[in-house]
């Protein structure tokens, strides 16, 4: 099967979803073709193919974007709203958290908000403190919203199709530095169920839980560990809310050791939740405390050596695993 990039996987998922269902819409800054189909071309070709009534470029106004997505979904559509970078969700938090996440509950189930919010982030491109944050823990802490973060083209395709199918709001997190990472192309129509992790590699000594770009770092770490005779099991979480407790707990039951890796800062991050749940459920099976590996507790720095040291990398993951097994 031919290889495609994550960016292409996303583009195809949008094309196929729009083709399959007339109610699927796209809105966001620069998303239509007169605007180049997005600053990085993720939505390229869509407005030409499906019309600018279904693929609409918007003003720079994230509250208006998410509000329009919510409203049009109440009117029966399935909009995919793009918030260019995850840090820009900060100007739309009211719409996302107080409205999109809550309308189903507050209406007693009468209305629902089947929207997808695609957003992108990640350190490594020298974009500095206001363009690179991972904020998934905020949304995961919000009842009524789902959060996914694929690490390869096929999952990107399959999770986005599932997110669009989903009757509830989903935050779909893309990673800038791996947009052009290649991988196996999915079959058209492929779905990755939300809430289902992927066991990337089986192993017996330690479980490594990661998602998004950290899966690449963890993969390298797992290979290095294998060379050292350590058999690590790598779980690509893919969905953060809800996350696949069964898969993680089954793995740690087997290995007795776990490391959770993410690019967000460590304190109060998703690693804390996963660590707490593992400890609660496998108190006696654990051979060592769960380790959390997240970014340094600071804003994302600009300077190259600082940025390089900011998020966990393969070496840090390998070292953490080695220390757990020591």
């Amino acid at each position: 099967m031919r290889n495609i990039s994550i960016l292409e996987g996303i583009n195809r998922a949008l094309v196929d979803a729009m083709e399959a269902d007339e109610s699927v819409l796209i809105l966001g800054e620069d998303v239509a073709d007169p605007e180049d189909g997005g600053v990085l071309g993720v939505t390229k070709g869509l407005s030409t193919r499906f019309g600018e009534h279904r693929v609409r470029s918007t003003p720079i106004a994230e509250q208006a974007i998410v509000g329009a997505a919510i409203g049009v979904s109440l009117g029966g559509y399935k909009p995919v709203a793009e918030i260019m970078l995850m840090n820009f969700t900060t100007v739309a938090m009211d719409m996302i958290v107080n409205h999109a996440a809550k309308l189903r509950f507050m209406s007693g189930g009468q209305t629902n908000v089947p929207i997808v919010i695609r957003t992108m982030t990640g350190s490594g491109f020298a974009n500095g403190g206001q363009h690179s944050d991972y904020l998934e823990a905020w949304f995961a802490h919000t009842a009524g919203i789902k959060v996914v973060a694929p690490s390869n083209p096929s999952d990107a395709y399959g999770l986005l199709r599932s997110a669009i199918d989903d009757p509830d709001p989903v935050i779909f997190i893309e990673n800038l530095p791996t947009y052009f990472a290649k991988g196996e192309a999915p079959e058209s129509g492929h779905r990755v169920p939300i809430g289902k992790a992927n066991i990337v590699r089986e192993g017996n000594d330690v479980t490594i839980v990661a998602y998004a770009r950290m899966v690449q770092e963890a993969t390298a770490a797992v290979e290095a560990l294998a060379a050292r005779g350590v058999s690590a099991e790598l779980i690509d979480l893919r969905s953060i809310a809800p996350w696949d407790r069964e898969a993680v707990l089954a793995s740690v039951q087997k290995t007795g050791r776990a490391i959770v890796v993410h690019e967000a800062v460590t304190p109060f991050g998703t690693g804390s939740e996963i660590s707490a749940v593992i400890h609660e459920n496998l108190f006696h099976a654990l051979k060592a405390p769960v380790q959390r590996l997240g970014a340094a507790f600071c804003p994302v720095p600009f300077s190259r050596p600082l940025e390089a040291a900011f998020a966990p990398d393969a070496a840090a993951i390998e070292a953490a695993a080695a220390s757990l097994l020591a």
Partner: protein
Amino acid sequence: MTNRTKPGTTTLVGIYRRMALIKANDERSRKVIMTGRLVMPYYSPRGQEVIPSAISANLNDSDYICTIYRGTHDMLAKGVPLKDLWAELAGRVTGTCKGKGGPMHITHPKSGVMVTTGIVGSSMPIANGLAWSSQLKGDGRVTIAYFGDGASNIGAFHEALNLASVWKLPVVFVCQNNEWGEHTAYEKATSAARIADRAASYSMPGIRIDGNDVLETYAAAHDAIGRARAGDGPTLIEAMTFRFHGHIFGDADAYMSPERKAAAMAADPVPRFRAWLIEHGHAGEADLAAMEAEIDAEIDEAIDYALASDFPDIAELSRDVFAVEAA
């Protein structure tokens, strides 16, 4: 006013019925809270009856509204049934939202009440989306976004009006200018002499009307809704009115000039329009008295129904969070 925008007797009496219902319902609400029969945050719309009553006379059931915490008048004028409403206020499972939303989040899609929000400014961006759905479907529906004067200073107002104009959406933005945002006077918070003037920022028609005048409000709504239905885009209506009571039940209004308030209450739009209807031969005193008695009875019945209804089961905490209940 052109003939086209002059309502006939049935319409006028229908508007009055809405106003009388809102007024009676408000009076009962305050009494029910005062006597401790119900506990809820209550934002009285008393004094603002005309606006949604005259607007709704131009709307179909299938048209949408998005309103705010204060919007009981907007909901009643749009047709939310009293029993469902009161059961929600009482937090009962028979309420519009099974008791889970409460007064600030009344939702009743059957009557077109799609969103009620407690966040200042947030009715507008969502209204745009509903209007966009109508534009896509070509279903001729119009969406009304209700909000207050204070809300015209928040970012969402600006973003929403700009988008609505650029996309030519079938939405009408109705600012109920009651001169106060909580305890803060209009002038202390708002740099525009008239909120209607802000429409120019969006190349959108903007009109300030006496929102306590039924005919003027009806005509402005008729024009704006007609424009929206015809695909000619949004309008901003600033309807001047006055809030008779505190911001929220329990607020003693110390910040208000007693004279101004007394004058506003003396010009109560409800009895004023009632008198006008009789004077102009649209209705007789006895007809209206009978209507009012009927309304009172309906409210009684709704409250009884509400208070006799069951509370939702605790299991409701995990329902409606997502489509599929978490295990």
